């Protein structure tokens, strides 16, 4: 099933030299490389904002009630009189931190950046199937980012119902101030975000299916592309459900419908809504919400598969098993959503079914982990910063994955549901893994994106600070959760009234956690500096700095419209021919024809 991209895009050669204006090159660009960079820059900015928010509420948790100049600097007198943030603002910060991290950094940023940059490059296409839709996808993302940021500055505060925005809290402005204008902006921002994500995903799917170059069969695709492809399919199937959840909520808020509301008295006001169900929202939300975890995670796993193989100078172990496990994870991700709802009053039998399907996911996940580890075995490892982050990813994927087994067990979930154990679990398994994958990707493909090299020593410093900081934050957090601390509490000194030991433990650990969080945040400054400095002043990169096999490294270092001068490269082999016995070099690019008598892997 060889692709027929060459003919279809042949006409590019004739007019690729026309001059581009500043606007069409840097702003309304339809070039996948520029759009990828736009996604990356926006996501980095959003990520910095979300990280800052987390530091603000970590200060409140470690030193509750103590005034802080840092907090007052950012929140001002209205939201933090005397440097102590208000209860409502605390919830607002938590909500926006979660929303930005999950959607804007790890969905838009990770999948948006690397799908855009790598799909055309690695399948040997001149660009995405539709450059215009691709541009539209970015600008929708940009507008939704602006709306989300703006929501933090409205008078009644940002959305405060948690990133899962469960109604009725999110539907009733009488219940919490953030459910007024802030929530409206949140809902509109997310609706536009979903449109962006859908347009992007459809484009990725079409591109992978139709624009592969000659010889690039599906089983010769790098695992990165498989990951982006499957991620896009998951997104197309699940994001519309979130949109419907959001639209029904908008209707309940603005048109007086009762999809999620029934028999409510709030602030002395008796509402007439009857017959709706807040549980319905949770079903709709988590039908996206759980696949979303894999929308975040699978691209990171794809990037790391490529990086771990290149830098171990070994083929990825079990290529087909890796594809199979991504497919299995993607399929299962659609039938596990209600494990977020074991104790909502849902029928317990339904709970049992979801226990079963959820625990099944551990099997393909285990296969992936063991395959990563076997890829390292007897390798010849180069510790580039990207490789360090990849090993960090595998570690986080394990430590976060195993605690998922506890949470998936409904009987155990009763006790630890909505405690800090959950917070620690998902931050490690999806936050850390995905962020490590994203950093690995940035370090590895930076030469491809900017034609420059990032500084390796600063990369090392960044990695070691980040992993120490991250584990320093999240390991103690498991213990806070197992002791029973509910999440989204503004102040744990309430424990002093009934259990002094638990109160002391939580306060002690919260101080440790905040200390490590500040350390990790400072570590990111090293990255930001290295990143922006290297874009402008970094040393020029070579054609194929990591001696990698995939097609993107055959394209000229200086970006050009259409990616390759002249004909598109032809593919003759799979992308993982590293250290082939008898070969001269320890890598054989995909464009090298099979030697005489050589069998294709």
């Amino acid at each position, binding site marked *: 099933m060889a692709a027929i991209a060459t003919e279809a895009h042949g006409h590019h050669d004739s007019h690729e030299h026309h001059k581009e204006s500043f606007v069409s090159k840097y702003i309304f660009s339809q070039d996948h490389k520029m759009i990828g960079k736009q996604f990356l820059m926006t996501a980095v900015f959003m990520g910095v904002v979300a990280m800052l928010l987390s530091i603000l509420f970590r200060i409140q948790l470690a030193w509750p009630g103590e005034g802080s100049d840092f907090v007052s600097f950012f929140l001002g007198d209205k939201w933090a009189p005397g440097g102590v943030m208000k209860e409502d603002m605390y919830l607002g910060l938590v909500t926006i931190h979660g929303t930005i991290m999950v959607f804007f950094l790890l969905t838009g940023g990770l999948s948006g950046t690397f799908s855009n940059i790598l799909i055309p490059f690695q399948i040997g296409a001149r660009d995405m199937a539709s450059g215009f839709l691709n541009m539209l996808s970015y600008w929708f993302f940009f507008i939704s980012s602006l709306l989300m940021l703006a929501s933090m500055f409205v008078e009644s505060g940002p959305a405060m119902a948690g990133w899962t925005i469960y109604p009725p809290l999110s539907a009733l402005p009488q219940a919490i101030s953030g459910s007024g204008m802030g929530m409206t902006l949140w809902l509109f921002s997310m609706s536009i975000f979903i449109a962006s994500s859908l347009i992007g995903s459809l484009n990725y799917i079409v591109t992978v299916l139709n624009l592969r170059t000659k010889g690039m069969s599906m089983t010769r695709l790098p695992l990165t592309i498989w990951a982006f492809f499957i991620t896009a399919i998951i997104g197309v199937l699940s994001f519309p459900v979130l949109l419907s959840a959001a639209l029904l909520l908008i209707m309940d808020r603005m048109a007086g419908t009762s999809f999620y509301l029934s028999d409510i008295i709030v602030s002395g006001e008796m509402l007439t809504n009857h017959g709706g169900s807040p549980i319905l929202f949770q079903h709709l939300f988590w039908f996206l919400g759980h696949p979303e975890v894999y929308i975040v995670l699978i691209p990171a796993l794809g990037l790391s598969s490529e990086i771990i193989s290149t830098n171990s100078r070994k083929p990825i172990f079990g290529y087909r098993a890796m594809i199979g496990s991504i497919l299995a994870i993607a399929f299962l991700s659609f039938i596990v959503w209600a494990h977020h709802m074991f104790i909502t009053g849902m029928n317990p039998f339904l709970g049992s079914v979801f*226990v079963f399907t959820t625990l099944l996911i551990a099997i393909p996940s285990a296969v992936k982990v063991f395959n990563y580890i076997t890829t390292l075995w007897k390798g010849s490892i180069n510790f580039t910063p990207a490789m360090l982050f990849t090993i960090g990813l595998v570690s986080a994927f394990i430590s976060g994955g195993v605690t998922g087994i506890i949470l998936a067990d409904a009987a155990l979930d009763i006790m630890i549901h909505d405690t800090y154990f959950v917070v620690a679990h998902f931050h490690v398994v999806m936050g850390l893994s995905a962020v490590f994958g994203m950093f690995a990707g940035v370090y590895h493909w930076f030469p491809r994106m900017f034609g420059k090299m990032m500084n*390796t020593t600063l990369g090392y410093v960044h990695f070691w600070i980040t992993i120490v900081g991250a*584990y320093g934050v999240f390991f103690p957090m498991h213990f806070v959760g197992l002791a029973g601390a509910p999440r989204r509490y503004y102040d744990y000194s309430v424990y002093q009234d009934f259990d002094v030991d638990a109160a002391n433990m939580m306060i002690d650990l919260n101080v440790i956690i905040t200390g490590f969080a500040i350390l990790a945040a400072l570590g990111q400054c090293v990255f930001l500096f290295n990143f922006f400095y290297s874009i402008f002043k970094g040393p020029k990169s070579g054609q194929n700095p990591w001696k990698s096999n995939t097609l993107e490294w055959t394209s000229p270092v200086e970006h050009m419209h259409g990616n390759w001068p002249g004909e598109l490269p032809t593919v003759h082999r799979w992308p993982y021919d590293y250290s082939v016995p008898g070969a001269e070099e320890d890598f054989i690019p995909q464009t090298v024809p099979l030697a005489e008598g050589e069998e294709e892997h």
Partner: protein
Amino acid sequence: MASKLIVLAVIVLGIITVSQLMKVYQLSSKLSNKNEAEISEKNNNLNAKLMIVFVLALFAGFIWLMLKYGWTGRGMAASVHGHEVDWLLNLNFVIILFVFFLTHIVLFFFAYKYVRKPGVKAHFFAHSNKLEMIWTVIPAIALGVIIIFGLRTWNKITDVAAAESIRVELFSKQFDWTARYSGEDNALGKFDYKLTTDDNELGLLTTNTIDSAINNMENGISGIKALEDKLNDPSVVLSVQDRNDLMTDLDRKGRLIRLLHQMKGRHDSKADALAWDDIIQKDTLYLCVDKEYELNFRSKDVIHSAYLPNFRVQMNTVPGMTTRFKFTPDITTEDFRKTKHNPDFHFVLMCNKICGGAHYKMKMTVVVLEEEEYDDWMESKSFDTFKDKYFASM
């Protein structure tokens, strides 16, 4: 303001300094022909060693936390099913900790051992059906065990409560809890949110409460009559906004009053007795040791979650529906305090679903008593039923 300027100046100067240092570094690496893509032996080996240092530090930190805070971080369970849940948790922890330590040792040891060495080529090893079969089947078996044990416990916990178990309702609203005991008949009175008035905070359903809700809706301070009078009073000048708000309110109350009249028509006064003997209790929830309870949960406004960590109980309270959880406390507060060596300890009911600004303060003390003490307390409440309170407030 000055301090903020100084901070900004320091940041800017810092960035400039680091940039200059980077320039020097790059000039020197250009002179020595260093390429960022080539990882030196020295750097490679340094990172390989750091891998080992890191994983040992990680294990040390983890074991320190386990020793200091208890290996699963919490106290003994205080309910019958709680012990089973704790046993299951320990089993699961043994399995996952084994996996965690094993995979981390292998991962970081391989990263250390197989760092690039001059002259050693990587071993071309692309797949092995046997190995892949092993690490598909073994996790599958382990998960089978986890699933079977887990579901057995889950089914037992969520099974229907025995007929003789004591019915207690926990009513949640921003930001407190109210308990309602079912009284002599061990049956909770029916309720409807539309019946909620100052004298009937839980909206219990009796002939009298329907009448007073109708009366309140029609003739209360902001009842239909008062609203109509205000709207029709020519001497009151209302802004368009205020007038619209009043009209909306009137419209809503018109709909509610119709529903209340329908309710009155359908109501069978025989059901009154169910509610009259109920006992409403604030601040502290008293339970009897070794008795099974069926907790019924209700919410007035938004979703809350009734979380009783010591009893390993948690269930969301959802507006518009009733949720349930059964459990049997098996140790009194007094005895539990002895095990904790803490005379001030209390069991607690907390809210564990984000419900508004004061979410973190929404709690209720729980006291588990010996049967005798519990009976005495019940006795003291027998003249304090809903009926007594309702008519006393008339």
